[in-house]
């Protein structure tokens, strides 16, 4: 009965779990935490999520983009953390996820104000996304001169921008007589 001798060597190794929490190591991938103040609604996390736990939907009536995480679907892979440009979503050490009665308690939602296109008046991005782009451009050494004209370009939706570019090209070609 060598096995009993082996068993006797170590004292109790289990702990009183819900009372005494299990200590996880650094870098443990727990529940992804959402920080609303940092989120710009770019949608990178939604694209990266393998299990469709994240969603970003446009609500035209309210004029908001609704970002939502559904922890029922989350697989704790941490891809969202990896791709987020502003660290709005990051992995925590929390792993106990129990709710009583209502599965909706396992979701977190953030509403981000949408921005209209200057030309066609259609929602095309969030206000924060637009500001973020502006700040990034400034910090990258964007020339502030003629800012109004440039901001117009920034506040135009991709569709209108495309049309504008085509129109400009067509005009130039006409001038050259192509």
């Amino acid at each position, binding site marked *: 009965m*060598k096995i009993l001798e082996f068993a006797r060597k170590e004292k109790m*190794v289990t702990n009183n779990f819900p009372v005494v929490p299990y200590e996880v*190591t650094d870098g443990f991938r727990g529940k992804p935490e959402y920080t609303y103040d940092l989120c710009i609604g770019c949608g990178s996390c939604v694209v990266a999520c*393998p299990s469709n736990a994240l969603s970003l939907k446009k609500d035209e009536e309210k004029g908001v983009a609704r970002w939502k995480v559904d922890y029922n679907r989350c697989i*704790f*892979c941490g891809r969202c953390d*990896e791709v987020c440009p502003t660290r709005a979503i990051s992995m925590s050490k929390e792993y106990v996820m129990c709710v009583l009665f209502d599965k909706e308690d396992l979701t977190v939602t953030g509403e981000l104000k949408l921005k209209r296109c200057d030309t066609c008046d259609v929602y095309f991005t969030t206000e924060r996304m637009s500001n973020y782009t502006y700040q990034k451009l400034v910090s990258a050494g964007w020339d502030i001169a003629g800012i109004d004209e440039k901001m117009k370009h920034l506040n135009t939706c991709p569709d209108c921008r495309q049309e504008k570019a085509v129109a400009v090209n067509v005009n130039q070609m006409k001038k050259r007589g192509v």
Partner: protein
Amino acid sequence: MEKTIIKGKKFITALSNRFKVEVIRHQPEDQITILVDRNDLPEVVRTLYYDMGGWLSTMVANDEREMNGNYALYYVLSMEGGKMHEGDELPAEEKCWITVKALIPAHDPVYPSVTVKVPAAVWYEREARDMMGLVAEGLPDQRRLAVSDDFPEGLYPLRKDSIDYRERFAPYDLDKEPDYDFLFPEGEGTVDVPVGPVHITSDEPGQFRLFVDGETIIDADYKLFYVHRGVEKLAENRMDYDQMAFLAERICGICGFAHAVACIESSENVSAVEVPMRAQAIRTICLETERLHSHLLNIGLASEFTGNVTAFLQLFKIREHTMEMAQIITGGRKTYGMILTGGVRRDITDIERKEMHRIMNKVEADFKECLDGIIDSPNFIKRLTGVGVLNKKVARDFSPVGPNMRGSGFNRDTRYDHPFDWYKNVNFNVAVQPSGDVLSRVLVRAAEFHESISIIRQCLELMPSGPVMAKKAFVEPFSHGLGYVEAPRGEDMHWTMHGNAQKVHRWRVRASTYNNWPSLRFQFRGNSVADAPLIVGSIDPCYSCSERVTIVDVKKSKSKIIGMDDLKKYGISGKNSPLKNA
């Protein structure tokens, strides 16, 4: 340059003397695809299998109608030598994968069965019929395998045009549901013991029929695939390569990381991605960490089935430390989530490395002591010796993998035969035991446990510094390749054909246990009913919770339901047979 041996050339030359063979793909250098006529298929596969020392690793049915108007079959053979006796093995530089491809015209989806000549193909051909509607002429076993008994006729889920998700078929009424046609042995006095529908120590719910004469099992039949989840179709429809790794990791709860690696490497192998050395080493470390906890689980369960619950719990105590190791280096106790195309997502720091060494030293010493304690018990040895023997001849015919195979004296190990990742750079022995019974499988696992620890140590010490992620490369549309990994239970094979939007076109997953099931029937024969859970356990499918067993006496047409607890108790004590009053 002339000196370089072109891998597999020998086999192709020999084949072309007898058949019309065309090499259609040779990339990477150890994966060769040949195209043969569908009528030559059985003979070509047989020649490669028995005459040239091949083993059937997987078979893929593919819908290529949008490419060339045909269906296609790919029989993947691992060329490594017969290994039936000493010296019957190919030298390392000749080992390769040969994929035999045959086109099946869409208007006539029939091909001659390979199973008649190579029994290992039986499950694959049954599955090809269910999933693609390709009929193997002459296949001895024409029953369904993968789809349920009430699945509509003529609907083949993996065909590209098969299911419009808006039009689901109406299910059968419960009482009209057809039954699965089990193979009943002939003769008087046999008792049919159905075990299942959900349980007996398999990760998937499976229904087993044990046909017993008195206490002895004379034959067995089983129906599995109750939890076929359709991951292949899911990935084909909506996933890109980065997302597939996470889906692949969830194929198995125990050896998930092996699947993720196999899945990603099947796409890396055909594109120009060069995985950094450090990433390869980290993959290897994670794979071996997974093997540690999986083997501890299996040895623990072998002790539990023989009544040694103390040993089971002590092994689980050690297992907890291996889970901790995984947590330190990957951030997850079980699903590691480490891998993406091009490398791994996370580096191992120096602090983590030291911590790994500390835990490994403890785990190694503890395991040694604990195993000594287990082996010390004559009861344990007696229960395991001579039980569930996998005959060498049966093994050669059915291509089993993993410790199941190595316990029968074959040194088949993907890490050794087809070294992938960092395994080229580490030294390890292939653990082999000659006798083929449950005990030898346990001993193989115990020896592999120590090898794994040694591999992790070597990797941690020798791995080079550098980046852990390489840039992604373009995957050529409709190229295909293999990914292979030695999971704790044996070789995992993934075959992918790439689509034209940098997404997967067809993904074929072959988990290791898939190759071990067909030969299990022969392992059952001649053993006592009480040993059935032990034998199923020894091929190491994952274990699910207990279920009930129905006993049917054919002669008296009486049935009795006994709980799994009763059978387990009987398995432990060998007294008060629940069959007696049946």
